[in-house]
């Protein structure tokens, strides 16, 4: 009976902390972008900036920011132009999308968005999406707010991913250009590669409920020694719950930043030029040696190693043959090694892109990087699971 009371106490404390942390640490959440005239939410987002000149006054681009928003399948952009005072002049520009990310903007699937911004009318923006052939797809408009700050005038817009035919985490390329010949362009050469992956979160109460059911199921299977169900529920459930909690969290953000910053320092030693954004260090800019252009690599929950850590911890913490001591000893060690293995993987990916060029992005990210990661992780699993298991089994077999 005492055991059950203690267990319930631990669970209650956990749940209290869980809900309390959300109320007490609002800064732990990433800022949420909205089409609301507030521009502080763009603080942690990736952007490209351009110098003054090179186009007509009302079409001279200063910067473009891009990002996604939780539980929202739209691509958000914030455009900033020079000439803050020139309130009366409309600004027209186009955002071109290479939807299949093959380097050509002429394919039937590719699209462009015609953007018209009318300053001084509470950020009136009209966005019309067209296919390359000129077929109209959709129009979005509204008074989404504007802001004038030192040297520039800003407005924001959003485009539906569904209309663009972009699936989550699909690589797309884009650039923005002013209307007419001789218009400004951002970036000046090449384009931006982006894998937009909007965070999808579940409600906290639902996660808490799932957590309680999960605890009960584990206790049930463990007590009745139904090991296969126990292990599936425990290990997989742990991974599910931790991913749901970590996705879009402060920890994920910090982890991505850490990987980004470490990567930059390590690659610097190898003479591979990279940059990280001061305000969004989870994004690494890689200089491509082939055409001396830049591309971005986003460090997300997967490439920060966080996902693999959740999986490994689930498998390790609930592996029934190990003592508590062994689990507690192995867990931090495993997390650290996964972190290092992941750094090696990202390093391989960036090195290949740096020397091999834009066309190698897919191969390096999906194949080479994953193969390196896979081989090292299997080696790690051998040392965390197979080898210790063999030692334990060997003891009891030898003892008869």
């Amino acid at each position, binding site marked *: 009976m005492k055991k059950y009371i203690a267990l319930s106490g631990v669970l209650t404390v956990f749940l209290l902390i869980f809900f309390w942390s959300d109320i007490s640490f609002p800064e732990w959440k990433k800022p949420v972008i909205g089409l609301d005239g507030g521009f502080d939410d763009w603080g942690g987002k990736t952007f490209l900036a351009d110098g003054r000149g090179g186009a007509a006054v009302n079409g001279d681009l200063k910067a473009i920011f891009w990002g996604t928003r939780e539980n929202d399948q739209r691509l958000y952009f914030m455009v900033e132009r020079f000439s803050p005072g020139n309130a009366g002049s409309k600004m027209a520009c186009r955002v071109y999308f290479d939807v299949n990310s093959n380097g050509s903007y002429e394919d039937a699937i590719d699209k462009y968005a015609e953007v018209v911004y009318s300053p001084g009318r509470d950020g009136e923006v009209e966005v019309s999406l067209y296919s390359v052939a000129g077929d109209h797809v959709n129009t979005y408009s509204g008074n989404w707010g504007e802001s004038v700050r030192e040297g520039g005038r800003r407005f924001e817009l959003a485009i539906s991913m569904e209309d663009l035919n972009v699936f989550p985490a699909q690589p797309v390329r884009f650039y923005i250009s002013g209307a007419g010949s001789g218009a400004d362009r951002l970036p000046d050469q090449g384009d931006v590669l982006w894998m937009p*992956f909007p*965070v*999808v979160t579940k409600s906290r109460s639902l996660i808490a409920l799932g957590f309680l059911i999960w605890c009960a199921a584990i206790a049930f299977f463990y007590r009745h020694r139904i090991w296969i169900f126990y292990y599936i529920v425990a290990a997989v459930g742990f991974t599910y719950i931790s991913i749901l909690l970590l996705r879009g969290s402060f920890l994920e953000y910090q982890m991505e930043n850490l990987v980004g910053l470490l990567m930059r320092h390590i690659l610097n030693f190898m003479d591979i030029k990279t940059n990280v954004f001061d305000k969004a260090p989870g994004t690494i800019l890689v200089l491509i040696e082939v055409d001396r252009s830049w591309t971005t690599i986003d460090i997300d929950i997967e490439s920060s190693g966080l996902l693999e850590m959740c999986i490994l911890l689930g498998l390790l913490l609930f592996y029934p*043959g190990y003592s508590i001591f062994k689990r507690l000893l192995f867990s931090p060690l495993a997390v650290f090694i996964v972190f290092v293995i992941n750094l090696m993987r990202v390093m391989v990916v960036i090195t290949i892109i740096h020397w091999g060029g834009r066309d190698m992005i897919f191969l390096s990210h999906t194949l080479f990087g994953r193969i390196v990661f896979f081989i090292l992780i299997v080696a790690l699993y051998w040392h965390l699971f197979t*080898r210790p298991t063999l030692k334990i089994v060997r003891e009891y077999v030898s003892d008869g």
Partner: protein
Amino acid sequence: MDEVFLERTLNFLLFWGVWLLAPLMFDISTAIVYFISLFLHSYKAQPVPELTFYPGVTIVVPVYNSTGNLYQCLRSILYQSYPVDCLHVICVDNGSRDNSFEVFQGFQAKHQELAVSWTKLDRPGKSRALNAGLYSGQGSYLCNLDSDTTLDKDAIMQVIKTFENDPSLVAATGTIRVDKELGNNFGFMDIVNYCEVIEYLIAFDVGRRYQTLTNTLFTLSGAFSVFRRDIILQSFMYQDRTLAEDTDLTFYIRNAVKNKNARIGSISSAVAFVEPIESLSRLYSQRVRWQRGEIEVASICFGNIPNAFQAVKDFTGRILISDHTQAFSRLTWTFLIPFLYFLGYSLPLVVISMIGLFLCYLLLDTAYFLVAYKSVNKAYRQDLKKIWWIVFFLPVYRYFSYWFRMSGILMALTELKSWQVENPVTQFTRALKSYKFW
């Protein structure tokens, strides 16, 4: 749109499916090595010359509650093409509580041309029974045969011909086939049994043949194996320290003859038939035992348990990486790929990727099936043709088999050794019933 969707699905599959695809690549590359070596070997294979002299063979049949099968087993020995007067059968009873002895008596009274003797042990245990029989055996060759196994009429002849023609061969396993009539019934257990038929076919006609070529045979089947008598008597014989006494013995013999240019192999022309599995519970129990036995034997076969890089170089290490190490990541990823839907991936994408994964495994199983099909005789091919559609079930069967083996991995660390284990569904319902509210 479709084009991008397909491309996207492929990327998704390659990127997220890597944990399920990479073990598959491991299997496919193994399969390719198998296929190439077997193809090359089929050109080199020489016909085995006929025997001019028939050495004595002792067949040891451990008996444990074998009323139903013993008669068939003994009869299959009687009808061997090998001269009956060169055969001696020893039935070793290790604690039967049924009418096995009466079956033996009935057979002996009817067929006095075959020398059959009966030994009774006071303690149970298959290893003890086998050892007792092996010690009392005469002749140059000792053979063990399970009482629920029947021999093809040329089995002993083929085995002895191969041994006599190859002095380096010290022990060999016969080819085990599942004795199931193919293509007439379509019940649930029939489908499971057909899968079992193909599984054995692949294991013996592809897997073991390859292991024979590379002298890396993992298990001399407990159902039907033959040894040179002097070799087996030098070994510790069968031991009951693990759940896989046949694999344990195989490793022991291999170590004992390591430096003597000796080989352990499988003889594909010597066929024995086993009964198909009766129920899913039995299948579960069997797979748990196999997996646990594999880990137990592997744990004692290494002098020092190797690190990951040494393990890759060793064939037992490679088997463990495939069956044990990768089983862990496979466990989570099987559930994580559907879960990606909740992280924002589109449902059709996830579903089509899962179908894609199934197709990859289907392709692998079809390739194995075809190679195994090519290697059997014409009559059996005709039978196999009747159940060609079973390839679509093989990935599912393989998948369930994986979970059963995963259970074996866990039970190796949590439960005492046991030949039969209760299946988790029965355990679950029993556990529920133990609560009052139920």
